């Protein structure tokens, strides 16, 4: 069922990763994504993987949830790695019809798999350990310079946090509406693509209608609670950069340095 998805969930906790400044986490996450796509040899890949593992362990979240978030993308991983496996360059070591496997293909498949998995694990680690409010709060602060060009920073952040809040609610609702239409004999499991898309209409229309009704209600509730935009608002949870964050940045800097050194000195590149 749709609501079993672990990806994007938050698990409250007091681990080191939980206590990092969310701004630091977001910046590190961005740097990390760049660096995993700049790993061109196994030594570099080992360094980034070790870094990933370190953070997963420090997050003190059961590996079960990380596995669950990987389960969702298993097909994407398989598909892209197969694609890479069969479309490598160089001399084939095995060939059948249009499919050929080369050493280069195998390496590429390994790299792409590790990169996607790292990406998912890192983003899971970020959302598992950072509450949606912290996340949007941090984004709001990081984007603050954009206010100079009249970008509605607070509004965008508020919309993001509301969207995150209502994702599980709307997933539950989708489930409920699907069950109700199935109970009226709707056929959602068979037929060609066109028929299947058409079968979604009885689910999508009620979902939209209900989302609009909710939006209206939420707006009323927010007004009742004295909401009047970002001006003059304070936050209960203050975020500060601490020594923890500085140390994390140093570790990440070492990883980046390591990857660069590997790329320069290892005489092999994919």
């Amino acid at each position, binding site marked *: 069922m749709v609501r079993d998805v672990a990806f994007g969930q938050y698990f409250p906790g007091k681990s080191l990763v939980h206590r990092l400044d969310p701004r630091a986490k977001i910046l590190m996450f961005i740097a990390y994504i760049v660096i995993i796509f700049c790993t061109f040899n196994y030594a570099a890949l080992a360094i980034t993987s070790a870094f990933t593992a370190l953070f997963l362990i420090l997050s003190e979240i059961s590996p079960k949830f990380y596995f669950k978030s990987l389960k969702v993308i298993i097909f994407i991983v398989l598909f892209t790695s197969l694609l890479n496996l069969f479309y490598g360059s160089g001399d084939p070591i095995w060939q059948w019809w249009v499919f050929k496997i080369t050493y280069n293909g195998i390496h590429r498949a390994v790299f792409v798999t590790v990169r996607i998995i790292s990406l998912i694990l890192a983003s899971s680690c970020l959302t598992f350990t950072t509450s949606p409010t912290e996340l949007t709060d941090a984004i709001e602060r990081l984007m603050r310079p954009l206010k100079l060009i009249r970008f509605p920073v607070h509004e965008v952040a508020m919309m993001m946090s509301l969207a995150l809040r209502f994702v599980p609610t709307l997933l539950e609702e989708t489930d409920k509406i699907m*069950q109700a239409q199935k*109970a009226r*004999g709707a*056929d959602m499991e068979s037929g060609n693509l066109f028929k299947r898309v058409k079968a979604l209409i009885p689910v999508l229309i*009620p979902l939209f209608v209900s989302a609009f009704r909710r939006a209206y209600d939420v707006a009323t509730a927010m007004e009742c609670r004295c909401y009047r935009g970002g001006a003059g608002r304070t936050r209960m949870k203050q975020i500060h950069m601490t020594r923890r964050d500085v140390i994390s940045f140093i570790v990440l800097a070492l990883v980046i340095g390591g990857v660069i050194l590997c790329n320069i000195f290892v005489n092999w590149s994919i």
Partner: protein
Amino acid sequence: MSCVLELKNISFVYGKGTPFEKRAVDNVSFKINKGEFIGVMGHTGSGKSTLMQMLNGLIRPSEGQVLLDGKDIWAEPKKIRSVRFKVGMVFQYPEYQLFEETVYKDIAFGPQNKGLEGDELDKAVREAADFTGLKPALLEKSPFDLSGGEKRRAAIAGVIAMDPEILVLDEPTAGLDPMGREVLLSQITRYHSERRNTVLLVSHTMEDIARVADRIIVMNKGKLAMLEPTAEVFRRGDELARYGLKVPQITKIMSELRKKGIDVPEGVLTVDDAFRALLPLLKKGGKLW
């Protein structure tokens, strides 16, 4: 009487093999006869909703069999959709399922999926609308322009129009005001008495169940706690309270009187019954005219 629905040792386990494993329904067996009006009660989380969704194959039981007219509904899993037309299911707050351009088309969605066409379809839609008290003029309106109560009735009509052998209603009166509740309940009883179909009504409002049900299913912690004639269930008021259910005020008043040695019958469910029971006693005491 012929048995229309039989559950044999039904269980349902959520998240089997994970640390979250939970037995939502635990070894439930019962038989329901054709034309019966069954009330279903249970505290939130007692497993009654899961149980109901197993009756029309929306949820497949982990163990056990659901027999409809003597046949296992999961004998051919590919044909499970045909069971949905035999066991009509109205969910809680069913107005959220409306989607068509007109009320007419929305009510027709179910019977069309069943394969009805032309005059037959028209008749099914109009009869269903009539049972739920929707005026013909409303049928050409958009369902989104109806009032809350009308939406509810349109959604229920959409299930009734499939002419199911068994109609399951999950809290059909939730959120309605007393008058709306009253009207809807009388429409359901009219449907039951005219069509002579089996009806299962899930409700937290015992007063409502007391008025309409022949027998009552009480669920508690996933198990079948009671399946008895209505009066018998309410006679066991203390037991119901233990399952976290709220007995009608009048039932409690009468059982208090009994405990104080006043000779009133057990299991009084309505103000009418209480009034009729008290009248002769008070007359005898010379307290009335």
